[in-house]
């Protein structure tokens, strides 16, 4: 029986993001929160694996209390256990503190239950686009990571082996790995299907198990949230709209001078 962990993030729907033109800050009010689309693929992949091999799906997220809604939705993907990591001390975490918070919780779950065979993450979250948390958690769990997964070709629980297709710049790599392994998923990895009514009803009733920095998970408080984050936001601003550059009139400056202006830019941009 497969023991699967899926890590998800609740994100603002970036297609709906608006900027306050006076302050240059995000207008968060009224922006719907959704499960990060790549995490949906990870959930769908887990759901398919559970159908094929049987087993258990644990879904974890770190976020504000309202992230419980994302976990409830995960029940529609046949999640068996949903875990919410929420605490004011987790707030303001960059990717290093986030991977620490998640990895310690995952270690705690493994210690109190049993080890996972596969850890499934989205390839990146659409609000930050960093793609750093998956590899970061893998480093902390000391397991191999395969990013940009598009397909599981083969899974052999007895031999503890998995064959995965991943997308690279030059093509598709086929990799064989031993379990456990952490996969970060592309959209192609799993497609959401319509959940049966029974699952939807179950999702409405489900409530996550909630963990904070209260000591049940043995967190080092100095490594959590803003305190545990090496990076700081120094400044936030709206990008400048491109300004009109230099204008010249061919008949006034002559062909030769105009050509030199173009050559100068070609060289500055490294294309000549």
């Amino acid at each position, binding site marked *: 029986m497969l023991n699967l962990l899926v890590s998800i993030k609740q994100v603002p729907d970036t297609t709906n993001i608006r900027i306050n033109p006076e302050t240059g800050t995000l207008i968060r009010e009224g922006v719907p929160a959704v499960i990060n689309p790549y995490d949906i693929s990870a959930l769908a992949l887990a759901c398919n694996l559970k159908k094929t091999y049987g087993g258990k799906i644990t879904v974890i997220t770190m976020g504000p209390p309202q992230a419980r809604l994302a976990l409830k939705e995960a029940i529609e993907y046949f999640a068996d256990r949903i875990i919410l990591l929420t605490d004011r001390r987790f707030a303001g975490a960059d990717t290093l503190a986030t991977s620490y918070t998640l990895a310690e919780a995952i270690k705690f779950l493994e210690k109190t239950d049993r080890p996972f065979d596969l850890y499934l993450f989205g390839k990146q979250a659409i609000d930050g686009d960093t793609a*750093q948390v998956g*590899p970061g958690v893998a480093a902390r769990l000391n397991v191999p990571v395969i990013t940009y997964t598009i397909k599981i070709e083969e899974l052999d629980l007895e031999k503890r082996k998995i064959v995965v297709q991943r997308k690279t710049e030059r093509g598709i790599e086929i990799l064989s790995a031993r379990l456990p392994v952490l996969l970060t998923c592309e959209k192609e990895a799993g497609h959401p299907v319509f959940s049966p009514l029974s699952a939807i009803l179950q999702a409405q009733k489900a409530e996550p198990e909630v963990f904070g920095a209260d000591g049940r998970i043995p967190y080092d408080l100095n490594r959590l949230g803003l305190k545990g984050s*090496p*990076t700081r936001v120094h400044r936030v601003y709206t990008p400048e709209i491109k300004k009109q550059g230099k204008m010249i009139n*061919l008949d006034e400056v002559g062909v030769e001078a105009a050509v030199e202006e173009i050559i100068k830019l070609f060289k500055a941009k490294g294309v000549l």
Partner: protein
Amino acid sequence: MTAETSKEVWVYIEQEEKAIHPVSFELLGVAKRLAQDLEGITAGVLLGHEVSDLTSEIFAYGADKVYIVSHPALAYYRHRAYAKALYEVAKRYKPEILLLPATPLGRDLAGGVATLLETGLTADVTELSIDKATKNLLMTRPAYGGNIMATIICPDHRPQMASVRPRIFPMPERKEGRTGEIITVEVELSEEEVGVERIGFIPKEKTVKIELAEVIVAGGKGIGGKEGFAKLFELSKLLNGEVGASRLAVEAGWISYEHQVGQTGKTVRPKVYLAVGISGAIQHRAGMQNSDCIISINIDPKADIFKISDLGIVGDWKKIIPALIERIKKEKGLG
């Protein structure tokens, strides 16, 4: 890692099949500028198996030093092997800054290495500079789909790490014969700990992709016909670029649809977009306004394309394009 570090600005040199990804050279260019502001030096880190031939290229593009790890386990990219090797080198030699390409492989590597080093990492940076007062690295990146820009700092941890997208920074000048110090670093790696093995590869099919071109010479209604486009093809070939077109030029049948740029065509982001005889309707601009540098030639001084151009030339393209072709041929020693 908070210990004192030597002021070295490092670039992770991405290589596959013993070919260096050109973004590595772009990063050497920006590393050089940062190193100057820190009064430090620039170094490349090269991981692989039997790749020492590549060091001359890294020096030619401005590195003062190259750290090299050569190991059979590094024969092709695998996260655990590469992450451990890069981590070990950084831990031993303590760079001030470590830049990685924000390519799929570079991003895969960066997150793991930053975690092992317990330091900050900023992804997809589009601007880099040194804060004059604090000497910290200022890393600016787009957030929320490019709706806002955020400048990130990593004040108390070293190295300061950032990944940078290809074609954000210009290619630095290449100086043949430039040399520097080579430092060979031994790292212990075993197949057992790597845990992943490549058992197959399906290469991408090559197709004409103007989306990926670094130079696009695009023509519109003002080009007047197929003969005009022949001149644009001649120019783009000299620049190793592709030819783009406006919807009007495509609909007139002067060039095929696969060259169309704009809302109903392709979105491009080349280093240089040369718009010839294109008025610049919003639908066209939507497909090319993120180009690094836009140069426009149009007979009409009121053409909208000029509003977003770095260089606008009011005049007849038939006068300037042939002269430009001759000038580039001369530059390349072809004429």
